[in-house]
């Protein structure tokens, strides 16, 4: 695909900005936390088996995260920016509600793909008391791989 003559961002895409999703349920799973600790060779005793606490980076594997429901305008995508905030540690076995929303959609001319679309979306995680636990925000740069400049492969 060459550079489009006009933006591929439609009114429908723009209407998605600021709309909050239905809450998704996420459980902090001990098996997932242990597997991720093992891959990272994390020996921090705060997160060891039996402590009931999961390391902050389990947020990386949580379902219901910021990619959920993200508008897909172009077929390829690379994670280009990310933010995590933690209000308190995650507890093993706790059930969280994840609410996502699109914050921004914009397009960009130039770069290795000629034309790309940047979508920023975030998710807030709340515990059963409605208290904020963490949040995650990502920006995905969407592109058409066929538009890649020669020499960048």
């Amino acid at each position: 695909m060459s550079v489009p003559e006009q933006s591929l961002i439609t009114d429908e895409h723009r209407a998605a900005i600021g709309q909050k999703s239905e809450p998704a349920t996420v459980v902090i799973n001990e098996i997932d936390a242990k597997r991720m600790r093992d891959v990272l060779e994390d020996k921090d005793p705060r997160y060891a088996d039996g402590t009931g606490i999961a390391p902050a980076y389990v947020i990386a594997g949580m379902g219901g995260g910021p990619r959920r429901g993200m508008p897909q305008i172009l077929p390829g995508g690379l994670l280009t920016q990310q933010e995590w905030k933690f209000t308190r540690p995650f507890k093993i076995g706790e059930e969280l509600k994840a609410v996502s929303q699109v914050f921004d959609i914009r397009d960009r001319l130039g770069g290795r793909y000629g034309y790309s679309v940047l979508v920023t979306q975030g998710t807030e995680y709340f515990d059963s008391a409605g208290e904020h636990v963490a949040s995650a925000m990502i920006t995905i740069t969407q592109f058409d791989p066929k538009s890649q400049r020669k020499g960048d492969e």
Partner: protein
Amino acid sequence: MSQIYFEDINVDDELEPLERTPTTDMAIDFFGRDNPTNPAFSDIEAGKRLGVGGALVPGLLKLSWLTQYVSDWAGLEGHVRNLRAAYRRPDVADRPLTLTGRVVDKRVEDGKNLVELEVVTLAEGQPSTRANVQVELPSK
């Protein structure tokens, strides 16, 4: 794991560099073999189609490493409060990354001892991920 205290920290203090070599197995195991992930994390050809030059290292794995790196530095009584990362260049599996960081600010805010760090992953000496991290440290 030793404990570092707010009073001992100075702006421009550097963290001890740490080397990590991401592999395709790590990328898959981190998210779980039963969970769907980007094919480019394990398939060199899929990575090449993205223009990466090999199997893509997941950004989430790199940010998790940086979280662990700073968390270890902050010690058992320290807490990582937030991280904001920009992925400057894709990284390719089996190529070593060096994690480095330095203190850029320290302050007391609402009674909390806050330290701001800049941390990076370096691939062949060039930053591939840059992150700003805020940690809370204990006082002596």
